[in-house]
């Protein structure tokens, strides 16, 4: 029951502070919030009904967990049979689980994914960027995001397409795998369901010594055109040539959809 409360409180708080988007796609916001509120009410009601959950003790955390096990976990505990020894082990384990969950959901501040995950997931590899590119060619580029430009680059839209185009994009800084010294990406994560499936997309920038001015994972906003990539080792043919490149704060909606 304590775990439910931790989950419910975490969801409601994220929703209230507008940070639910760090974890799930906006299309699930309503369902998630409604279920969290219903579950919250059910759990509070359960406190009144469940025998043994009388509130005559203080709110000592460990005590609360021990209770949970009593009411709650016959499925796992009794399955192992066990005398008081195994029972104690399971009690300790469940305290650990509850404590770890509380720390993860309630103590650590919500965060976006970082470049460590970009490295795991092959920037621009997924076809999230490939699907829409044909429709993009010929449309107005004013509202294009990092994702749109990345799609066009991946599709090999060609130098003549990019000639004279101006992009205005915001994203976080992540190094190029082939030429980390000279090339970095202005990148975003594309989320289709929740952060688990986030796919990194990005636009390459050629700027030797960029590390001195921009930290990895810091956010930048840039305006500029495109041109051929002077880097010898990078696999990218065309790079973004920002005329202006400024550090900015992380936007309220760090992911794109």
């Amino acid at each position: 029951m304590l775990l439910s409360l931790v989950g419910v409180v975490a969801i409601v708080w994220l929703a209230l502070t507008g940070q639910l988007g760090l974890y799930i796609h906006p299309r699930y916001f309503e369902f998630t919030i409604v279920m969290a509120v219903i579950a919250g009410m059910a759990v509070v009601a359960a406190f009144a009904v469940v025998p043994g959950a009388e509130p005559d003790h203080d709110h000592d955390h460990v005590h609360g967990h021990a209770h949970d096990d009593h009411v709650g976990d016959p499925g796992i505990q009794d399955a192992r049979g066990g005398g008081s020894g195994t029972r104690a082990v399971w009690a300790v384990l469940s305290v650990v689980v509850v404590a770890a969950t509380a720390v993860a959901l309630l103590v650590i501040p919500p965060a976006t994914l970082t470049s460590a995950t970009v490295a795991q997931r092959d920037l621009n590899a997924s076809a999230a960027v490939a699907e829409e590119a044909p429709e993009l060619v010929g449309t107005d580029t004013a509202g294009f995001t990092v994702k749109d430009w990345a799609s066009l680059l991946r599709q090999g839209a060609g130098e003549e397409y990019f000639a004279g185009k101006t992009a205005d994009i915001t994203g976080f800084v992540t190094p190029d795998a082939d030429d980390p010294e000279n090339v970095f990406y202005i990148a975003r994560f594309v989320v289709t369901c929740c952060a688990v499936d986030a796919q990194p997309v990005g636009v390459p920038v050629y700027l030797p010594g960029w590390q001195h001015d921009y930290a990895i994972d810091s956010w930048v906003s840039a305006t500029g055109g495109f041109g051929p990539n002077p880097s010898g080792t990078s696999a990218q043919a065309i790079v973004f040539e920002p005329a202006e490149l400024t550090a900015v704060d992380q936007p309220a909606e760090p992911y794109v959809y």
Partner: protein
Amino acid sequence: MLVGVLAGAALVGLLLVLRTVTAGPGGAGLPDRVSDFVTLSVSVVIESLPFVFLGILISAVVRFWVPDRWLQRVMPRTPWLRRVTISLVGVLLPVCECGNVPLARGFLMKGFSVPEAMTFILAAPILNPVTIVTTYQAFGWDDGILAGRIIGGFVIANLVGWLFSRHPQPWSLLTPSFEAACRAEAGHDAPAGQRVRLRRAVVAFAEETSTMLPALVVGSAIAGAIQVGISRDVLVALGGNPVWSVLALMALAFVIAICSNVDAFFVLAFGSTFLPGGVVAFLVFGAMIDIKMLTLLRTTFTTKALALLVTVVALASIALGFGVNLLA
């Protein structure tokens, strides 16, 4: 009773305060990998939690408000026909796989047999309107992906149900404590009186969440850890091969552990890198089995039963994937 409600509310307040206090600006100063592990695991929890709650609520309604006699009357008597019917129940109850486990537990308590519950767990995540609509939105009728998912899911669920019905003692597949709980409940019809029912439903909700959530949390943490630890390039590199595309996407489905209601959008991103057979295998296998599902199912079934289940479903999904690759 009022004191209990107040205590619960106070606890909610306490946790809210804790959250507000700790939510300082800036990160927690964790290394990137650890921070990403937490973010990924939390996102699995937050994504699945509403479905688990919904499943538990529906399960409580089925247990305490649906009369046994009514269930027996609508259900056909022939075992395989019963299983076919049960595999279609998901159409009425659009809960994805994480919500199906508590629901199946409710059905078992209501007197369903073990093979029937298995069939339900496997079929319902695929044969439900939300999944079908999202799969259609993602793929349309391309390459038989939608048809492969629906037909394949239905056939595999009933195949597994039939296999488990050959088991000499199906009840021994359940964990002893859960079996005891089922036996205690058998024979008692839904209690009379709305107050009593409501009271017992609330207790059941508390018990089920206490059983399910630790399993969910542990499963999500494992899923998050695998995500951080294993590079995805390897899997994606295998996409074009008719054999490997199926196996690679099934492995991905197992570790990524996202709900069947939404996985079509996810795999769409891989749609052009992978052959359709791999996509179908992902959509069928992933909806039935993944790392988070195994920890949830372990609350109810023995390890041996689960090993058997995984083997059969995996083999059947592989066959399905290869078949689609041959045809498409």
